[in-house]
Structure formats: C-alpha cells, structure tokens
C-alpha cells in the first residue's frame, strides 16, 4: 500500500541546537503510530513538521506524494487534521461553535450532523451550549478533539483517507476519557485514516498502536511493533528507568516502572 506520509531524513536545527536529526518515517493508510520518548526528545517538533506547520531545516516531507510545504493551507486542512497540545481560547465561544470551526465552509446541515456526531463521540453532547473557557482543561481538550474529528471527516468525505496528528492528546484527561479518545482514534485508523499520536503513556501506546516510534535526543531510536519496540533494555537505556514488562491474557504487553536511576544500581 502506498504511504500517506513520507518523511525523508528530516532535521530541525534552531539556533545551533539540533532538535530533530535525520528522521525517516513512512505511515500507511489505516496505520496507527505512536511517537514516544523522554521529554525534549523532539516529539512535538517532529509532529509540527509532519503537520506542515514547521518547515524542516533539512529533508522533505511528502503528504500523498506531494511536498507538504507546497499545499495551500485550505487544501492541506482537507488532507490532515492536527490536535495541538495546548489550545487557549480567550473569547467565550460555545463548545458547539468551537467544534463547528472544524467544518470550514461545509454546508450547514452536513456540518451540523458531523458536529453532533463528534460531540457524542467525545462525550460532550450535554455541554454543547456551554462557553468553552468555563470548562475544565480535560473537557476543553475533548472539545478540541471533536473539532479535529469534524475537520478530518470533512476532508475525508472529499479526498479519501487523510492524516490525523495528535500531540499528547491525553495529557489532561481522566483514565476513562484517555481510553475513549485513543479508541476513537483507533476506529478512525481502522477506517483507513493514518494516525500519528505523540503519547507519554507507554502502556496506552502499546495497547493501541500498531507501531511505536521511539525518539531519543532528536534521533529515531526504535521503530517497530509494540513487542519489539519496547523492551526492558530499551526503556532502561532511553528513559533511565527500570521496568518490568508483562503480558495480559490477550498477549498485550504492559509495563510497571520499578526504580529510577538504574545506572547507579549497576
């Protein structure tokens, strides 16, 4: 299957510091990829380059076989949707109005259907008339996720499977809504969308992602299936934490952090 997104030796240098260093990445339709790594590994920078928002210092990113920098913003928004980490809304827009922004200039009736469906999916239908700034951080995050889902749906209706980028989408969600959100993204992937999510929770990543990309100091350390990407050895080397890895009855790996600073223990 042809890849939706191809990154060829992409680097980002800001003021002499190399934040992302020569990363190659291909993502096919229907694939769900988790990007993990310690703080400052370059995860968010990589994602912002993959979204077309940041222009890489070196290398090229192609979305559907076309240089992502060559898309005009409106067209790009039809092919990829992105949920940023912090979105701070200063004016009293209602949840529904915010989610509607994802629909662009789609027809009123069609947009309303998508908005209602997305609000249901993020469990915010009862808050649709609330002003967004009055909601909790987690609820706001879910509202923005609904907006991004609407944008994705509008684009896919016209242009086929698209790309969904999520930057730490679960950072302020409770456990139930974390699972809800990742499962929703997973359903999109099963319908053909290519999903790339920066995740902090390795267990969540191993539970849902088809592939795990582990970044370390701007470089791609590991790129593979959940069992070969995450081993106790890798975690010790990159996160500097001792972990125990076990498997559920279904064979899904999960890990339990043990002690910090294994280097001193050795």
């Amino acid at each position, binding site marked *: 299957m042809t890849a939706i997104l191809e990154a060829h030796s992409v680097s980002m240098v800001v003021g002499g510091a190399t934040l992302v260093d020569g990363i190659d990445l291909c993502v096919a339709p229907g694939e769900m990829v988790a990007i993990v790594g310690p703080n400052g590994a370059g995860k968010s920078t990589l994602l912002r380059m993959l979204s077309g928002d940041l222009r890489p210092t070196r290398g090229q990113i192609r979305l559907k076989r076309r240089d992502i920098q060559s898309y005009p913003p409106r067209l790009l928004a039809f092919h990829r949707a992105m949920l940023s980490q912090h979105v701070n809304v200063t004016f009293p827009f209602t949840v529904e109005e915010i989610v509607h922004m994802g629909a662009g200039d789609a027809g009123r009736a069609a947009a309303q259907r998508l908005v209602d469906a997305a609000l249901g999916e993020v469990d915010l239908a009862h808050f649709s008339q609330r*002003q967004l700034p*009055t909601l909790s951080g987690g609820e706001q995050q879910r509202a923005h996720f609904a907006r991004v889902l609407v944008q994705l749906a509008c684009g896919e209706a016209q242009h086929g499977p698209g790309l969904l980028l999520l930057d730490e989408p679960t950072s302020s969600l409770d456990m139930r809504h974390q699972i809800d959100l990742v499962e929703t993204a997973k359903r999109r992937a099963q319908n053909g969308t290519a999903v790339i999510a920066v995740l902090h929770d390795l267990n969540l990543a191993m539970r849902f992602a088809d592939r795990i990309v582990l970044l370390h100091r701007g470089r791609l350390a590991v790129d593979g299936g959940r069992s070969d990407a995450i081993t106790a050895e890798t975690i010790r080397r990159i996160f500097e934490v001792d972990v125990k890895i076990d498997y559920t009855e279904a064979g899904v790996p999960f890990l339990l952090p043990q002690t910090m600073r294994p280097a001193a223990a050795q």
Partner: protein
Amino acid sequence: MTVLTEGSTKRRSGYALRPPASVTLICLFGALAGAALIALTVGAAGIPLARLPAALGLWGDAGAGPSLARDQLVLWSIRIPRIGAAAMIGALLAASGAIMQGLFRNPLADPALVGVSSGGALAAAAAIVFTDSQIGQNFRFMQHQLLPIAAFVGSLATTVILYSIASRSGRTSIAIFLLAGIAIAAIANAGIGLLVFIADDRQLRDITFWLLGSLSGATWPKLATLAPVLGCAAIACLSIARGLDVLVLGEAEAFHSGVDVERLKRISIVLVSAMTGVAVSVCGVVGFIGIVVPHLLRLVIGPAHRLLLPTSMLLGAVLLVGADTLARTIVAPAEMPIGVLTAAIGAPFFLAMLLRQRGLVSL
C-alpha cells in the same frame, strides 16, 4: 502564559443565552434611527419634532419665514453631515476595535489605547504643518486627500511596528503588546508635542482639534471620504469573519484548520489602519468606542465575528451619535471635545472590565 477569559464568570454558569441575530440587528437599527432623530432635534438651535419634516423639506407646513430657512440651513449644512460623520466614524472605530481584538486574541486591544490613533494623529498633524511649508505649498491642491492618507499611513506604520514587537513565532504576548502600545503612544504624543511647539497659531488650532477629537468639522466632502472606506471595510469584514473566529484557537491551530494566517493578518492590519486612520483624519482621536462596543456585544450575542463585526458597526454608530449629541448640548452654546467625553465614560468602563477579570488575567 496568558489566560484571559471574557464573560465567563461562574455566576453565569457558563451557558450561553443569545438572542437571535435578526432581533439584535432590528434593535440596533431602531436605536440608530432613534439616536439620529434625537440628534436632529436638539442642539444650540432646537428644532421641535413636529417641525422636523417641514424643516427637512419633506412634508407638512411649519409656516414659511426666516425661522424655517434657518432650520433648513442648520439641518442640511451642519446637523445632517455631522450626524452622518458621527455614525460612520462610530462604526469604523467600533469595528476596527473588534478586528484588532480578534487579531490579538485579546478583548483589551483598542486602536486608541495602543497608540494606533496617536500614530495617525501624528501623521495628520505633520501633514498640517507640512502643507504650510514652502515645499508643501505644491501639495495644497490635494489637502482634502492628504490628511486621510497621512493618517492612514501613520496608523498603518504604528500597527505594523506594534505587531512585530508583540508577536514572536506566532505567539502574541499581551503584556508586551500593551506596554509597547503605551510606548508607541508616548512617542507619537512626543512628536505631536514637538509639532505643537513649532506650529503657528492657526496650525495650533487645527492640531488641538485633532488631539481632543471633535466632530464640529464634519462637512459633506468629509462624508464623501468616509463613506467609501466604510463600504469597503464592511465588505472586507465579512470576508475575514470566519478567519478571525478560527484565529482564536491560536495561529498554529488556525493554520491547521486551513486558514491562511499570514494573509488574514495582513488584511486585518491594513483594515484596522485604514478604518482608524480615516476616522482620525475627520474627527481626531476618539478613544474607547473600539473597546466598549465589542465587549458589550460579546456579552449579548457571543464572540462570532460574522455577527460581531456588523453589530459593532451599528452600536458604534449609535454610541457616537449619542455621545456627539451630548457633547454639543451639555455645555451649549460651547461644545465639549468628544474625545474627552468618550474617555470620561470609556475609561471607567475599561477599569471595570479589568476588575471583573482580575482573577482570570495573568500577564
């Protein structure tokens, strides 16, 4: 990190109760008609409502004679152009405030507050002094156009400087924005002070008029400058309304949502500068309309720009027609500068807004 939230106090429990757009628009049109009617009848020369149709030359018979001729003169050469100018300038100032607030994602932005009006006034004052100079004599023939153009260029330069200082890599620091605005206003005012110093008596009178703001200079030719700008601005406003809505998410997020952010910013900056500049060139610096009007409207109709921009124009027109009527009647036959009046009403309002949000603001 800056968190600034408007109309989101707990006691309103966060639910939005908004009247239908049509009701809001009808109410505002009604208010504008009412304000204009009152403005027509009161003033140094009172014209009772019953005499108005006859004095306007429409219908009715108020008995001919010298008093009718006087009323007609007062209405057609003084009051009507003045009311028209007040309405159009109010519309321009309120909408430029709303656009600026959308651009900076902050309800405290106002062209007069952050020096954009002062920049325009400085350029206008410079133009006044310049046209009297030796070289300037050659440009006298275009004096009517020169002032609005100078004010526009001054406002544009100020807005561009302000924007490039306050925003870095897509993020706008509100503290830096407001402080830079204060500094720019101070620089512009120093420049105006210098011009006042070198100006002769007649120029001084002209410049003072700019500084305090007054609509007494409104004439039909000035309306002819205002009207096309207002018309173009109204059309441009509709075209940027959705972009400004999405921009509330942040520049990167607006780009992710398909908005051409750079283009939107360019259009908004030129629009704010043109609207403020032309308004300043006709009536001088009139503050706080741009901050009070959009704020009041957001509380009632919400922040969506598609409705906020046109309603701001209407409410701005109503307020400035009302304020101008007040300015020329409370100390009649003298006249209070309208800039003084709007500041006296607007500044306490601005403080109240700050107090209400004190818990939610962090600079």
